């Protein structure tokens, strides 16, 4: 397979958030600011790459019937590593994302790629697929986070753009996440058809 295609499909054609609609829980939950989206996206990217790498390495040794539990254990291991490392070296980000880090384990994107791609392809392609999917996921989260932060509180990446009083609070809260995501997907679908 063309490796560039393999990498770039995660951004647009098979974007986890906009096209596959996978991993909605962290997408809606953490994107109240762009920086949270970025942190969550990068953490997920790391887990995706590592899980894809290991799964593609051991895929031949895992009997079919127990492959899902095996994948989950592998994913959970990497998530726990990310969690402990973040807590140790970037406590501020850990405080902000806290609850959502363990939830990467059940993020469908990660298990989905392990099952649909890594368990059928070689190591190189799997790493590239993980990186592309992860960065595409990050991009989607940053886009959504930026929009919500800008409309909701007048900040962008923590920098003030306009006074907070004029922000639409709803965008920082859960309903705003659904509204913003809905419009984003609509716009992207429009471009896809063109």
């Amino acid at each position, binding site marked *: 397979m063309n490796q560039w295609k393999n990498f770039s499909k995660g951004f647009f054609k098979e974007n986890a958030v906009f096209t596959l609609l996978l991993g909605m829980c962290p997408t809606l939950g953490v994107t*109240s*600011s762009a920086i949270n989206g970025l942190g969550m996206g990068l953490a997920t990217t790391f887990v995706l790459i590592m899980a894809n790498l290991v799964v593609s390495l*051991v895929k*031949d*040794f*895992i*009997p*079919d*019937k*127990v492959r899902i*539990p*095996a994948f989950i*254990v*592998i994913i*959970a*291991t990497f998530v*726990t*590593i990310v969690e*402990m*490392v973040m*807590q*140790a*070296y970037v*406590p501020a980000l850990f*405080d902000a994302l806290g*609850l959502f880090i363990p939830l990467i384990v059940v993020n469908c994107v990660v298990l989905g790629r392990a099952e649909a791609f890594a368990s059928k392809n070689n190591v190189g392609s799997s790493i590239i697929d993980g990186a592309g999917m992860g960065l595409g996921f990050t991009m989607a989260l940053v886009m959504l986070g930026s929009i919500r932060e800008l409309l*909701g*509180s007048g900040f962008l990446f923590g920098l003030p753009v*306009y*006074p907070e*009083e*004029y922000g639409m*609070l709803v965008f*920082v*809260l859960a309903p705003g996440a659904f509204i913003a995501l809905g419009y984003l997907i609509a716009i992207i679908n429009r471009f896809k058809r063109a």
Partner: protein
Amino acid sequence: MGKSASTLPAMVLTLLIITAVAGTSLGFIYKLTQTPIAEAAVLKQQEAIRMVVPEFDNDPASEMYELTSEEGFTLKVFPAKKDGQCIAAAIESVSNRGFGGEVKIMVGLQPNGTIIDYQILEHKETPGLGTKMVDWFKPVAAGAEEKSRNAFFDKLFGIKAAEGDGGENGQSILGKNPGQINMTVKQDGGDVDAITAATITSRAFLHAVAVAYTTFTHNTDCESGATKIEEAPTREGAEQ
């Protein structure tokens, strides 16, 4: 390449190996990150203490003692001393009345109970609403610049500047003594402006401050314990 067959021994063995490797590597990483995690927590605590009390020359963490509030919370008191004299105390207080659970704060009190400053340590309040408590209850310091910009936007959107409060706002609790003012939100008949659209968080925050104040002033003389502070704070003291 042929896959391993799904026989019981193969499945059991595979899962055993995978979980064993996972467990071992996690244990290893845990050992590796244990110290930095503990250090980060201590650093955060010291930073918070330094933020809420005036300059000190002792080690508040080593002189820390615990008090139990009327509701049964355990509060940690970090006395700050200069030249051997207790000038203030940083108190780690908590309220379980938050919108999303516990609100944990570090509040600096003078020996008479006047609030010096505070820091939010832990909370699960709504981002963008309850999270404003981080600086809501502090005086608007960098006001000048912000005001001119707001004036521009006010004009742009045709909004009249809010009259009234001006100057001294009702939000700030710094330099105030909970013994003298009513430390509850205005909705409850108190003297403090609640955070817009986050009254519950405001209540929880003020509750945590009030718990720190009552427990501290009723149980201790800053140094160790026992004696109760009787002297009323002077106006000058409250102004600092």
